[in-house]
């Protein structure tokens, strides 16, 4: 049951063996993996939109969409048909190359990351030995596509939303990259499969440094996906729709798809790095992976339904003044963990981290405003 997909793939390859030459078999194997991801990505995104609408609806004390198909299960198809049939409006002064390429270039990194996610035991797309660095590198190219979208639209609100979005994304990339350094230190490798197998005895999120790193990575991932509470760049009540204001129809659907695929991959990576990936007692490995990923996605949707939006200076202040020093102290704490043993390392690491968290939150408190003095004209 655990290896059902791996078995299916090898049986298919054996069926094809008499027909194809040797290089054809390798090509067929690669194409099968790519086809699985190319189908999995958009289908995931479609059902994530439905999940979000129903969960946010329940949090707002209403039922989500339930007309199209039982429990609204065919709603994504209705949404797809709507987006495909909308008119594709390109603004007159827009730069045609930039305006056209931006939605394409934003989906490409979101899809490329699916290749390094360990979906189950032996079910990674490509087991690169720099898997984690590949994830970080490819997801950092999303900023270029957002620039292209905001600049090519020739719209002041687009430009403003795009600049804010890029500033937010590059600010939150740094704590994200630094917060996975402890995981790399303890697991000893950048390959996602090796990191999952290094958690066979103890999940990294159960250790003090791992817990802090997990929370920081998750928060930075939510910020990278431009989701609430970090969704100032696309806030409807403030900036129309930010960098994707001037996009309609299928191009908007591509932006939407990229955002949801990004949130899936960030949750999946978080589950891989900190929550033990596909490890678990009873269920098959791919079921555990999906369970952990979807519970993190549920937490993201929970954030959206509950928390108000950050103000832009609070947003940047959180990244640079709070999360960045905390990640650096986390790296120091994991060094302490590595060189000690037993109860000393648990108490020591927890002590260092709790103390630094408390100090940073005290240092980052807004100053108390002075009492105002009113002077009236006499």
């Amino acid at each position: 049951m655990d290896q059902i997909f791996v078995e299916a793939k090898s049986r298919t390859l054996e069926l094809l063996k008499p027909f194809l030459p040797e290089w054809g078999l390798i090509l067929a194997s690669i194409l099968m993996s790519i086809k699985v991801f190319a189908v999995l990505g958009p289908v995931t995104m479609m059902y994530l939109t439905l999940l979000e609408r129903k969960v946010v609806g329940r949090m707002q004390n209403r039922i989500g969409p339930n007309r199209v198909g039982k429990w609204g299960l065919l709603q994504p198809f209705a949404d797809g048909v709507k987006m495909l049939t909308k008119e594709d409006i390109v603004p007159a002064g827009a730069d045609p190359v930039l305006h056209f390429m931006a939605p394409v270039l934003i989906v490409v990194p979101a899809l490329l990351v699916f290749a390094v996610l360990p979906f189950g035991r032996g079910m990674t797309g490509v087991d690169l030995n720099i898997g984690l660095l590949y994830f970080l590198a490819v997801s950092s190219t999303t900023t270029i596509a957002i620039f292209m979208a905001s600049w090519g639209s020739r719209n002041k609100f687009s430009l403003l939303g795009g600049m804010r979005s890029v500033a937010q994304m590059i600010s939150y990339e740094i704590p994200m990259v630094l917060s996975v350094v402890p995981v790399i230190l303890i697991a000893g490798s950048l390959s996602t499969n090796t990191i999952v197998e290094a958690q066979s005895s103890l999940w990294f999120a159960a250790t003090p440094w791992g817990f802090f790193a997990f929370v920081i990575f998750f928060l930075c991932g939510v910020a990278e996906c431009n989701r609430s509470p970090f969704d100032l760049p696309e806030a409807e009540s403030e900036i129309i729709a930010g960098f994707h204001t001037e996009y309609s129809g299928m191009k908007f659907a591509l932006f939407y798809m990229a955002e949801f695929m990004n949130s899936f991959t960030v949750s999946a990576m978080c589950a891989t790095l900190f929550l033990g990936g596909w490890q678990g007692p009873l269920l098959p490995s791919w079921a555990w992976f999906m369970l952990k990923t979807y519970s993190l996605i549920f937490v993201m949707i929970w954030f959206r339904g509950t928390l108000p939006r950050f103000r832009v200076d609070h947003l940047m202040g959180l990244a640079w003044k709070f999360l960045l020093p905390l990640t650096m102290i986390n790296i120091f704490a994991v060094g302490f963990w590595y060189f000690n043993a037993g109860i000393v390392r648990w108490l020591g690491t927890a002590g260092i981290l709790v103390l630094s968290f408390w100090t940073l939150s005290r240092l980052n408190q807004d100053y108390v405003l002075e009492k105002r003095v009113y002077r009236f004209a006499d």
Partner: protein
Amino acid sequence: MNELQWGVKLALYAVMGLSIIAALGTVMLPNLFHSALALIGVLLGSAVIFLALHADFLAAVQILLYVGAVMTLVIFVIMLTERLNDKTLVQRNSQSIAAAIASVVFLFLTVKTILKTAWPVPASPVPPVEVSDLGAALMGEFVFPFEVISVILLATLVGAIVIAKKDKPA
């Protein structure tokens, strides 16, 4: 398996050709944003070449740093310093013909030298470099340049902020 080798070789030559076209676009396109995008194309092409040369860590670092950070900075500054009448201006200055001739002569001489040199073949094939080897080298043999470059980057950070700051009104 020979066919796969041929396929990979063809793909590498195609990537090299596309990178050269993108580099030509970088220096010749009048619209600055388009030329920045062409530079991103060249950087991605050279990241693929790094992968072909078994330098996978460096390929990922090139995409993370160069494309993700340096080009973002360049595009930010392009967007901040754009003037409306820049699009109709010609982007070559008065010495373009002399520069073209000089560059072609330089290229010709360089290629001739490369083709003439008998590059020594190593006795045994070079072992591929692992990420852990790079880490050990950075902390072992190359620790002094590592520390120096951290000081340089600190100086760059402080310097860039100081230079680009707006002056406070008196």
